[in-house]
């Protein structure tokens, strides 16, 4: 937000695409009230204009992306990379018909596999054939894919006229630096992942990756990638891969870890994988990469998930600092799962009596972030400067609470007794070495009645982090205590030395920025044929009404739906009963807690300001109530609700009963790549309550 504000002060032009005038759209020079679910159409048209009219950084694309790589269509009509027998990519040298083989993994296409310097061609001759195959570059194949996505085509679904789309594409394409902020959420519509990919592609077209004013890689991520490449080059094993791998290498390691039963005592892969494989075998819709999702959760409780002919049951669950009953979709799914007869034990570790805690058999009260020293020293998250940070307790614990690491250790002792295995996993996941950790714990047990395992972790983490930067733990502690962070390197220096991909590979399969995605190509080759798995940018229409297009007229009482966050309520539970923030929300009750509806549509339905209304999902028939907030800051065809309200647990005295819970309207429906929620892919009908 500070950077956004600074950009505004420096004169950046901001264009916001949003069906509603959000806090961000309120700060924009232009608010384009796009129809929900159609952002992808707008961006594909934009991408087409930029590629066709030359609004891209050609040198960047040639050198650091896979845009010049050659593709051919196989018998089935699928795009395949044209590689040599060792899987190395091939390109055409600029202005020639010479086909050159590149290194398999590299950040610079100017050098071939033998070290010869040349320049790759983005648009090789149209009649070029290699090994008897008609070939095109990724650039040409992508442009071909975009052929139908004209601004006139996008205007129909988005509701934004073609001339405006053309103008925005030109303004963006000819401004440097320029940046796309992709917005919040891996949910909303089935096309969300493709949308995020196209946003990244447009950013890459400008060459604005790891440049000042463009997308700057998080310093921690860059640092991990750098260390990882160094280790690969030296032929070293990567210690604690969960903590030290970056990018696709990390994703593939996680997929490998949870999909392989050998990694678990019980010999089964994660239930999400078991369920997806079972669904696939049955010819049903299945999730390609079911990592960190709840797909199959309900089925594993109901006894429907099987592994090698045996039932694979979930009978107990630990919910740590999460509030699925309020924030996952729908509320009924979680209420039913947590109170199912087969669910023998629900443990909630939380700081407040959340709506989920109400469904727990056991509540283990946890400290808030204000009351504890964190167990680790961390990288500074998405920050662009490389730094170390941690938290220091601001106040002693107010209540009878325990720390999460100590809770988890104790639970392991009770459940399986395999505490050695637990410590081994901690070493693998976080890099905290087991032997020093056990030694430190002997000491901290003497000092701390509670949280002694956390204190031991912190002690070892400080030693390890300090050794890496050639300081003592005491020095590191004193700097972080004083300034909050320990700064290691400034972003400009990092970009100059290890800019990705200009100075160093990016952690993709090929080391380049990939327009033709290696990951999606492999999923598609494994049989996933839905357009969601296209390796190139393509269109996936949102379908809020079965068989009907987004621009077709809605019924008189029918609306699209969208939701967003309030600045005053986080989605964790720590501040949802804060009396000061609750007072701010009361002050703006009409805006924050009511359902936004355009006065023109409200009038036709006889709905006035503040009227009680009933909302019903036309797809799932879920229904709930709210109060109408008549405002022209929303498209007439769309309703908006801030998703921060609708608390049900009376123990949350400041907020219970306020506003409308969005997850009483959102059904369980997911997209096929990672089970992202299609949390807006339906329509609602509205009537006076």
């Amino acid at each position, binding site marked *: *937000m*500070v950077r*956004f*504000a*600074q950009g*505004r*002060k420096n004169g950046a032009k901001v264009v916001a695409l949003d069906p509603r*005038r959000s*806090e*961000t*759209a*309120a*700060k924009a*020079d232009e608010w384009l009230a796009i129809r929900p679910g159609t952002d992808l159409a707008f961006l594909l048209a934009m991408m087409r204009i930029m590629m066709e009219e030359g609004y891209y950084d050609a040198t960047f694309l040639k050198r650091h992306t896979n845009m010049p790589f050659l593709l051919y269509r196989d018998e089935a009509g699928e795009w395949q990379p044209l590689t040599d027998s060792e899987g190395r990519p091939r390109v055409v040298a600029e202005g020639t018909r010479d086909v050159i083989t590149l290194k398999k993994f590299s950040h610079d296409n100017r050098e071939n596999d033998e070290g010869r310097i040349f320049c790759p061609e983005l648009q090789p001759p149209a009649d070029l054939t290699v090994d008897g195959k008609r070939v095109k570059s990724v650039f040409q194949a992508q442009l071909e894919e975009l052929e139908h996505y004209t601004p006139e085509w996008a205007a129909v679904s988005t509701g934004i006229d073609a001339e405006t789309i053309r103008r925005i594409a030109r303004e963006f394409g000819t401004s440097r630096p320029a940046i796309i902020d992709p917005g919040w959420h891996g949910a909303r519509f089935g096309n969300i992942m493709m949308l995020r990919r196209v946003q990244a592609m447009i950013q890459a077209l400008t060459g604005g990756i790891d440049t000042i004013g463009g997308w700057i890689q998080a310093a921690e991520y860059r640092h991990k990638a750098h260390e990882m490449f160094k280790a690969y080059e030296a032929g070293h094993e990567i210690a604690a891969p969960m903590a030290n791998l970056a990018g696709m290498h990390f994703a593939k390691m996680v997929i490998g870890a949870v999909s392989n039963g050998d990694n678990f005592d019980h010999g089964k892969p994660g239930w999400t994988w078991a369920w997806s494989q079972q669904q696939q075998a049955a010819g049903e819709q299945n999730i390609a990469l079911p990592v960190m999702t709840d797909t199959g959760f309900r089925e594993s409780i109901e006894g429907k998930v099987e592994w090698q002919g045996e039932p694979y049951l979930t009978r107990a669950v630990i919910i740590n600092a999460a509030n699925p009953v309020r924030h996952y979709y729908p509320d009924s799914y979680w209420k039913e799962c947590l109170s199912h007869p087969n669910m023998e034990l629900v443990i909630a570790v939380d700081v407040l009596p959340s709506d989920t805690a109400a469904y727990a058999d056991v509540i283990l009260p946890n400290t808030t972030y204000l009351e504890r020293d964190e167990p680790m020293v961390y990288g500074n998250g998405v920050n662009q400067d490389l730094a170390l940070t941690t938290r220091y307790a601001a106040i002693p614990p107010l209540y009878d609470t325990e720390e999460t690491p100590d809770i988890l250790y104790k639970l392991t002792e009770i459940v399986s007794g395999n505490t050695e295995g637990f410590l081994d996993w901690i070493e693998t996941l976080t890099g905290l070495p087991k032997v020093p950790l056990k030694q430190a714990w002997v000491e901290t047990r003497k000092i701390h009645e509670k949280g002694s395992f956390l204190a031991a972790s912190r002690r070892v983490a400080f030693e390890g982090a300090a050794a890496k930067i050639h300081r003592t733990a005491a020095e590191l502690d004193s700097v972080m205590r004083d300034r909050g962070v320990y700064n290691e390197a400034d972003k400009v220096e990092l970009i100059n030395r290890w800019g990705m991909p200009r100075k160093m590979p990016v952690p993709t399969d090929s080391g380049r920025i990939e327009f033709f995605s290696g990951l999606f190509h492999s999923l598609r080759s494994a049989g996933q044929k839905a357009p969601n798995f296209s390796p190139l940018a393509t269109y996936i229409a949102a379908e809020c009404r079965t068989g009907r297009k987004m621009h077709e007229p809605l019924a008189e009482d029918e609306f699209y739906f969208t939701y967003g966050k309030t*600045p*005053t309520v986080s989605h964790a539970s720590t501040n949802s009963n804060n*009396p*000061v*923030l609750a*007072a*701010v929300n*009361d*002050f*703006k009750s009409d*805006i924050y807690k009511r359902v936004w509806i355009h006065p023109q549509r409200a009038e036709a339905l006889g709905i006035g300001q503040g009227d009680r209304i009933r909302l019903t999902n036309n797809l799932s028939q879920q229904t709930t109530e709210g109060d109408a907030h008549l*405002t*022209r*800051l929303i498209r007439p065809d769309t309703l908006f609700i801030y998703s921060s309200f609708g608390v049900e647990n009376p123990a949350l005295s400041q907020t219970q009963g306020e506003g409308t819970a969005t997850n009483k309207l959102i059904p369980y429906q997911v997209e096929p790549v990672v089970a992202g929620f299609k949390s807006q892919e339906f329509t609602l009908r509205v009537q006076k309550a």
Partner: protein
Amino acid sequence: MTHYAMVIDLNTCVGCNACMAACAMENQTPVWKSSWRTYVHDKEIGNGSDVHRRFFPRLCNHCDNPPCMSVCPTGATYKLDNGIVLVDEERCMGCRACAMACPYDARRSVTYEDVERGREFYGEAYRRQHPSVDKCTFCEHRLKEGLEPACVETCVGSARMFCDLDNPEDPVSQLVASGVARPLMPHLGTRPNIYYIDDLKRRG
């Protein structure tokens, strides 16, 4: 001399209300009745479909010619040499004449009941001894310690900026001198010290 003023850049106020929360905690205001020394309007402006959303922070304008001070029958409202307008809670009899005279809607009542509630809510740290009319002090207690007002320090959009108008080197006072930042209702002759940088530009 020192002459305190605040500049608020409406172009970068993002409507997060952090100023409201920071001020409430810093100055121990009666949040239980949603009463604020500073608050942020969230307004819809414009005709038909040409509609804007504007966040507009408000607070006491610390006028050089403060009507609240002129009408105060007990002398409870007074002005410091540095421009800050304050209320002496012991001298205030709660008649609310000042609140009616203030064109900026910047004064709120704190009652006996609120003082009791405050002791409970803010605990031992609660400073107030008496009920009175209450208003922004520019966090005078913080200024004395070399700190900025709480709302300025917490402002995530760096929309709120604090300055000394008598210091020509102060970049914020230069904004005021440049004419780009303008006060509210100057025609009333109140000579206010809160300046706003406009966010609405003529288009088309």
